[in-house]
């Protein structure tokens, strides 16, 4: 089992004719993902590496029975692409695009909250269910099928942890990069709920970072509602307040909310051990299993 995506997912790639879209569509297809269509306005009727392109997402979904979208559309046009995907409708929309204006995302978030579609991202590496399908830009090679769910606000930090997990024989059910922006679709609680409901996920790794209060909310959820054990990691302990650390969402506010200390304390309060190093997180997962 897995969450969000599996070998049956039928995927449309929005922005398939762009450089990134084309490259990663190939990578996804090579990994085994069932990419059934592309969607690019004005490019309907063309093909990219044999994948048919449609002018609209609704047209692609209807013709190819797609249920999932991956979005590689540039930031200025991304909100429109996301609204289109949410309206199609689809089951899952994964937004890879980095740099979408916050107000555009506020509109998209509002729309997403009115639909049953799972929106993942933006500014995220994607979602992968090892040996079944990957959506996005994650390097498929480092993942292995197994029992550990992973949810993370960061890309390469995820890879770092996954690499350790896999090399110690701890495969993954699904790994979800929820993205580093201030406003994102699926948040920690949403992903944890899905993992909790997945009988094959026997432990979860949650990689948080400074900024916002999603980790604190996740800690409350873990403490009150979760049986599946969770090990945590929080990046940004040494970040100064008021500075954006790469991710638009990774910022400790001037008033001191969004600190690593607060998040670590909340998780440990909820009996979710937090590793001081990525290796320690994997140690905790080994303890669970």
């Amino acid at each position, binding site marked *: 089992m897995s969450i969000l995506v599996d070998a049956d997912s039928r995927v449309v790639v929005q922005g398939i004719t762009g450089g990134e879209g084309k490259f990663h569509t190939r990578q996804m297809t090579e990994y085994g993902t069932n990419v059934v269509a592309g969607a690019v306005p004005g490019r309907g009727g063309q093909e990219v590496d044999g994948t048919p392109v449609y002018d609209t997402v609704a047209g692609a979904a209807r013709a190819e029975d797609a249920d999932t979208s991956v979005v590689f559309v540039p930031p200025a046009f991304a909100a429109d692409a996301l609204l289109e995907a949410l309206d199609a409708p689809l089951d899952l929309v994964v937004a890879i695009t980095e740099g979408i204006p916050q107000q555009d995302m506020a509109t998209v*978030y509002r729309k997403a909250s009115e639909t049953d579609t799972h929106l993942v991202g933006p500014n995220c590496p994607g979602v992968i269910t090892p040996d079944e399908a990957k959506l996005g830009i994650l390097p498929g090679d480092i993942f292995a099928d197994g029992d550990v769910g992973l949810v993370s606000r960061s*890309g390469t930090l995820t890879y770092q942890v996954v690499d350790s997990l896999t090399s110690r024989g701890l495969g993954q059910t699904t790994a979800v990069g929820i993205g580093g922006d201030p406003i994102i679709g699926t948040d920690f609680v949403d992903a944890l709920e899905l993992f909790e409901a997945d009988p094959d996920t026997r432990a979860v790794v949650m990689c948080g970072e400074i900024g916002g209060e999603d980790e604190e909310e996740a800690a409350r959820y873990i403490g009150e509602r979760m049986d599946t054990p969770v090990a945590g990691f929080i990046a940004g302990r040494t970040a100064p307040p008021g500075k954006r*650390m790469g991710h638009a969402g990774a910022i400790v506010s001037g*008033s001191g909310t969004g600190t690593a200390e607060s998040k670590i304390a909340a998780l440990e309060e909820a009996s979710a051990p937090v590793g001081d190093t990525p290796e320690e997180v994997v140690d905790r997962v080994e303890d669970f299993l």
Partner: protein
Amino acid sequence: MKLHEHQAKEVFADAGIPVPESRLVATVEEAAEAAEAVGYPAAVKAQVRVGGRGKAGGIELVDDADEARAAAEEILGMELKGLRVDEVLVEAAVDFVDELYVGVTMDRGAGEPVAMVSTRGGVDIEAVAAEEPDAIVREGVDPVFGMQPYEARKAVYEAGVDRAVAGDVASVVRTLYGLWDDDDATEIEVNPLMVTADDEVVAADAVMNVDDDALFRQPELAESAEATDGDNLEAKADEYGFDYVRLDGDVGIVGNGAGLVMTTLDLVDYYGGAPANFLDIGGGAKAERVANALEVVFADDSVEAVVFNIFGGITRGDEVARGINEALTQFDEIPTPVVVRLAGTNAEEGMEILNTDLVTVEATLESAVQRAVDYAEGET
């Protein structure tokens, strides 16, 4: 991007929010002239893009030209939180009976903007928020509806703003929301919004942060960002397109991906060192980008050692290694030890390719960081 106070006030004034008369000047003599022009008492205010200028000595009240000269003398050229003051705003002081706080910011959790009103203006609002959260009324705004007049009124009346100025204050709140909406602001506030004895409201300070990701559609605001002040290294990193933050330590850090770079900083601290910077080199690792990143890090005199931490992902480790080798040969002399750790796809091949005459190679993140910390402490 944070606007200067004088830039934000210009934006506010254009939108119809009353601001005090003021002049922006860069010399002591101009400051005295400006004070004469706006009248006394006047405030001489450092124009740097940081909060808490008052407490740090960046704002002085003056009552005549000599005092204005003295204040400008003191403030111009001073360093506030690491930034040099190049200009001061000389502004007519407002004779007020009340100080309010009004602002609009993004409520990340709710995914929507929130307007805030408080009668406790003129003080550190974040302290008020922490100690007396009920003293600040928060009104969430549905971004697709936009802020309705009743929402502004509700916030203002519930905050207990005097009825005589409530309508004007509500109008300022809606104007701020309009700027938030039209100008892609992420944070916008007036603290204090002064109330005068004859029931007028005046924005005595102005804070406005604009979404960096939206500058492509805010050409006028983007222009004012170009005349950037502050840290030269941050400016250089910005030019190269790196996410860079300068810190106080001596271990320079280069990596790819925000979370992994933050983790590298945290590990430097964990192993007893002190990070000198955050530098996210982004995707791939072509020789030119590697060279640029090292140039920025080496330019920081405090740096005693550099840890270079790349997780390969889609870009394979051998390609990354070739990029690093090529970049390092571009330097006549490598000023500090560089520890490299490669991970991910083809990491082993990559580490074999790395030129160990130029860099130290470590197999794990932990060992790489420990080695760099050792170098910085003078151990080799």
